[in-house]
């Protein structure tokens, strides 16, 4: 556990958002993008590429698809930067676009998604007795990243999304609510549900404490 924690600290430091110079905040970069400044778009891309890719990959599950969509999102930013009115943070606005685009694809390939796996897992979550939580607690602590990724794939896109936005992108409840377009209460309940489903999926995948 200790080794994993250290490893995680190193990794999360290495993948955290690069700090922009003060004169180039997100909003200012968007201002320059409105004026069709390609260098600003490049800086904007470098700033958001990793978190955005991670989010899209988590939602779509396919590397090439996530890369294509990342390009698409950047094109939308280039074309529609003037639509940003400053009511939300830039990252919120950007992830909102990414969410919208990703769900357009997800809706198209709904038939390809194995609903059976999701339903089975979530059904088990619904019927899970409280006593069963104890070994699962250990599951989250000791499972490898591959096992966690595999377990996450058992969750529906909506549940993976809130986990990703809350704990990797570290958005607040209100921000997630505005990105995903659902009420605060739904974000909270979806997050609790996703946590339980993740634990169940870890057991479902054959993890043994």
């Amino acid at each position, binding site marked *: 556990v200790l080794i*994993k924690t250290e490893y995680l600290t190193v990794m999360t430091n290495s993948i955290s958002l690069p700090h922009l110079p003060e004169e180039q905040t997100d909003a200012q970069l968007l201002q320059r993008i409105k004026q069709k400044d390609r260098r600003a778009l490049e800086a904007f891309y470098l700033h958001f590429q990793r978190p955005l*890719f*991670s989010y899209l990959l988590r939602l779509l599950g396919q590397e090439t698809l996530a890369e294509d969509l990342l390009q698409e999102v950047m094109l939308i930013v280039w074309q529609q930067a003037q639509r940003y009115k400053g009511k939300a943070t830039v990252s919120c606005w950007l992830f909102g676009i990414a969410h919208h685009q990703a769900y357009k694809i997800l809706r198209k390939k709904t038939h390809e998604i194995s609903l059976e796996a999701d339903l089975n897992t979530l059904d088990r979550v619904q019927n899970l007795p409280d006593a069963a939580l104890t070994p699962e607690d250990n599951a*989250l*602590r000791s499972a490898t*990243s591959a096992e966690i990724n595999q377990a996450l794939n058992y969750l529906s896109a909506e549940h993976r999304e809130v986990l990703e936005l*809350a*704990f*990797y992108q570290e958005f607040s409840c209100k*921000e997630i609510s505005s990105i995903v377009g659902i009420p605060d209460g739904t974000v909270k309940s979806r997050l609790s549900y996703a946590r339980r489903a993740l634990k169940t999926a870890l057991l479902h995948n054959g993890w043994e404490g």
Partner: protein
Amino acid sequence: MQQSGPQWSHEDNRLKDNHLKEAVYQGYVARSGTFDSATQVSLACPKEQLAWYVNDTLPPQQREAITEHLRYCADCRYEVEQWSRTKTAIQLADAEQPLLRTMLFSAIEQRLDTNTPTARVRAIVTRAWQNLLVRTRYYSEILWTQARQIRVDLLWSPLLLLLISPSLIMLGYHIHTLSSLLNLQAFLSALLIALGMAFLYGQEIDPAYEMIQATPTEPALLLLLRGSIVFSYNVLINLLALLPLLLTHPGGLQLTPQWILGNWLAPLCCLAAISLLLSIVLNARVALCVCLLLWGLRALTLFSFNISLSSFLYSYGQFWQQTPLLFGIAAIAVILTFIAVERKERIVVL
């Protein structure tokens, strides 16, 4: 049991939110060792906020209050530990995700370059051309499949037309009978095409029907392609049947466009369309009977055999001379056929 409340310090008074006060109060209860079940029920833990406490997005005041609450609430501490583990798991999983291609921004720039008006027009034209190619290939494949599944008797029966003219010529028919010969040929060709349309779909076990059931191809598309094959094949045979007459009597025939439209094409299209509609809506037998009846009556008017016609038969004969009306009826019948075939995948059984 007497329950003494907590003494709110000046600092505590900053916490104006009652919910947070309750959280601290619960901490006081736990610290002082006093217990009141009624009080404990009323003091709800801020469970809904704990996930946001862990991801560090709560306002400072709220965060501070929860930190204080956690000192005394084992349940919430446990919950926070669970959320922390979830957070660690998600971050661990995300850290293992593949890296992005380094040249991705170049690809984005290329797409920006292709987003100019001329590039967009070029892209639309290219896409339309590719679309056309794909669709042509798709329809030609279906056409070929349908051609292979058409009943064999629909292919050889029109060939009988080819025998009529040479036979009559060999029997020594004179040039002045040619107009009657042409009328006979037009009459028979219309009947043959109508029967072909009636039996577009085959027996009870029809490979085409099986295909309709097994593939998502629209029934209307299959009907259109199959009907087009049979219709155009028959028209081609009709034209070939005229060849012997054209070759033996090149100057004797008066094949004007008006004659072709009025005496040949219009009745042919009308009868074929009526036959197709009846075969789809009802069945092939009904279509066959109606066609024979219509054409039998017309035979009386066309080849009068020196019998005086009743007024009804005379009007009926005139009806088949109304070119625009016949084309109109044919168009309506075809439209109704395609509506019917979409609504009801009815397969005609012989």
